[in-house]
């Protein structure tokens, strides 16, 4: 390389300044009020970094670069401007994959001795960059495909997947070691390169394809972190200070963000890395739990209502049960069974009541009734038939409600119903109702997905509550309105051992007296686990169909 225009000291100082600028940018981005500034600061630093690199390496006369930069910038800008908020998860996944791919190419170049010296250190890091970059690319593409519904959304597991994963990992490790030892002549390096790419691609694909349910946001965050790591390693390979610094920062803070999310849904990052993300056992174990579940659920639902009847002492325990739901559930199952079945008749009253429900809802209510009858037949104490309770008109319940908690989910995003949600909330607030929003950490397909959408609809940031802050309030709230959410409030997460959502803390919607559900259908959510709330005997009002339409009707009726 020719002598640089200015000394390397100046270059490194400038690199340090830019790195600190980017650090500061990320720091600002974690503060609500300064985040826009932070993002722009980071972007500016990046632009300066590009210019600095062009000058320092004296490559600005190479015209090919500018064509590529222009194409990329235009495509990126088009994508960035035209993408809808709802498509954000797959966009982030896709962009992330592209970055990983670029790192992989840099690693590949370095492995062939381009831009790096053929010393063990560079060879190791370049092979590593190639591997991490490629697996990020393929993992992200699969994740994006799943989110965009090009690929099946359920977790895919096939025979020999584990073996194939291990083979891929071993192959990757082997190629890195061989490259590091430098025992291969440069002419044969192609072989290593291709093997490495194929093995990493297969590992990335296998890693992502088995992810389903609530683990998707975490996987995206993890891949995001990985693309930073890939950049940093590529930087080590080609001795680029800025690349190393920024890549390291992104990789580490991405990892922290991933951990924050893992903590929120009570999972260990290590488990996810080891592939416990999947519902490996669900096919076998769930089938068996399903039978017993249908009976247990009868009991579990009335648990909250029953404990409330026993006055405040038990309410305390009820609140506690949100933290340790499984314990309390198993204890109470037997004692509450009789009480629950006596209430099971009330659903029929609901169907008869004059209502504003849509046709599909009516049809659904018949279903509910049918299912309820099944459950009732199963339980032993069907004989204790009480008089049919006169169920209130759902509209009256809403009008009388003093406090309402809205639970949004991915369905709200699909139906673009956030504006209707906001209008419904406004209507209720006019009536003097207190409206809060309960945001599950993994509601939607991306961390913070719901917050973004609700903000788009002008919902005040202060009204959004995180799960741990609001979960105890479901028992005292009058109405819970579920909009397109399923897995995050599925009580089955507490009892259905072996399913993907088992053990995940869920919103205690089942503790609420009245639940309004605005979902498209009663099919299981993303995690593929049936939600027993749909067949709850009392206080559940299903409004099936496109949430923005069903909500519109309700608002009109109010």
């Amino acid at each position: 390389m020719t002598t640089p225009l200015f000394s390397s000291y100046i270059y490194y100082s400038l690199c340090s300044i830019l790195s600190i600028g980017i650090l500061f940018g990320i720091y600002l981005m974690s503060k609500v009020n300064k985040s826009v500034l932070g993002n722009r600061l980071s972007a500016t630093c990046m632009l300066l970094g590009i210019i600095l690199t062009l000058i320092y390496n004296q490559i600005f006369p190479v015209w090919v670069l500018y064509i590529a930069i222009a194409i990329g910038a235009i495509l990126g800008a088009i994508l960035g401007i035209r993408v809808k908020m709802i498509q954000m998860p797959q966009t982030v996944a896709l962009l992330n994959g592209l970055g990983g791919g670029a790192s992989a190419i840099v690693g590949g170049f370095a492995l062939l001795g381009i831009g790096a010296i053929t010393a063990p250190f560079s060879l190791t890091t370049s092979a590593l960059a190639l591997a991490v970059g490629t697996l990020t690319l393929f993992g992200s593409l699969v994740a994006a495909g799943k989110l965009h519904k090009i690929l099946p959304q359920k977790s895919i597991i096939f025979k020999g997947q584990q073996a194939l994963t291990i083979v891929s990992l071993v192959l990757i490790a082997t190629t890195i070691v061989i490259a590091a030892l430098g025992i291969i002549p440069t002419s044969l390096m192609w072989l290593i390169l291709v093997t490495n790419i194929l093995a990493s691609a297969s590992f990335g694909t296998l890693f992502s394809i088995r992810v389903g349910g609530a683990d998707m946001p975490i996987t995206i965050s993890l891949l995001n972190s990985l693309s930073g790591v890939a950049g940093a390693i590529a930087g080590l390979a080609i001795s680029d200070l800025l690349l190393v610094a920024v890549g390291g920062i992104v990789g580490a803070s991405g990892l922290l963000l991933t951990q924050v999310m893992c903590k929120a849904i009570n999972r260990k990052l290590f488990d996810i890395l080891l592939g416990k993300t999947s519902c490996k056992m669900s096919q076998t174990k769930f089938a068996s739990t399903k039978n017993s579940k249908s009976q247990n659920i009868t009991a579990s639902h009335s648990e909250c209502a029953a404990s409330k009847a026993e006055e405040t002492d038990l309410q305390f325990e009820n609140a506690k049960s949100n933290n340790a739901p499984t314990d309390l559930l198993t204890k109470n199952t037997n004692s509450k069974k009789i009480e629950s079945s006596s209430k099971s008749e009330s659903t029929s009253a609901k169907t008869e009541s004059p209502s504003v429900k849509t046709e599909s809802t009516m049809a659904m209510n018949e279903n509910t009734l049918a299912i309820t009858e099944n459950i009732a037949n199963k339980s032993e104490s069907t004989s204790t038939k009480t008089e049919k309770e006169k169920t209130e008109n759902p509209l009256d319940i809403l009008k009388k409600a003093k406090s309402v908690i809205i639970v949004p989910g991915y369905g709200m995003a699909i139906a673009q119903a956030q504006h209707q949600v906001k209008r419904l909330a406004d209507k209720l607030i006019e009536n003097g109702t207190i409206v809060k929003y309960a945001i599950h950490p993994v509601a939607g397909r991306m961390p913070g997905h719901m917050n973004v959408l609700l903000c788009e609809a002008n919902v005040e940031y202060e009204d959004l509550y995180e799960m741990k802050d609001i979960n105890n309030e479901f028992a005292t709230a009058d109405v819970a309105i579920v909009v397109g959410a399923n897995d995050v409030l599925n009580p089955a997460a507490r009892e259905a051992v072996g399913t993907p959502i088992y053990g995940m803390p869920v919103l205690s919607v089942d503790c609420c007296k009245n639940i309004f559900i605005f979902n498209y259908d009663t099919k299981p959510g993303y995690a593929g686990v049936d939600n027993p709330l749909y067949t709850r005997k009392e206080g559940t009002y299903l409004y099936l169909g496109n949430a923005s339409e069903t909500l519109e009707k309700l608002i009109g009726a109010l």
Partner: protein
Amino acid sequence: MTLIQGILLGVFIVATIIGYFLINNVPSLLHTPLMSGMNALSGITILGALTATAIAFKSINPVLSAIVGGLAIVLAMINVVGGFVVTDRMLCMIVKKGGRKQ
């Protein structure tokens, strides 16, 4: 391992540690934009792509390296520009709404 590589490794470790403690206590409202912003930053690999492509273009097979290297630059650039634009859009929306009350 040369001195410069040692320094680089040191920088990597320091950057990792700083990055790890940087974003403690992020409100979940900002999870999405922060992730997408960091995603844009991970496109920093554009610097490597530029350098490597230029060297490859000048030294070895220009056509092949222009294609492969060009691809790397295009990919990284989409990542950078798309990422920052998307993040900016999200943040503007959130801050406008969320910050109004404060």
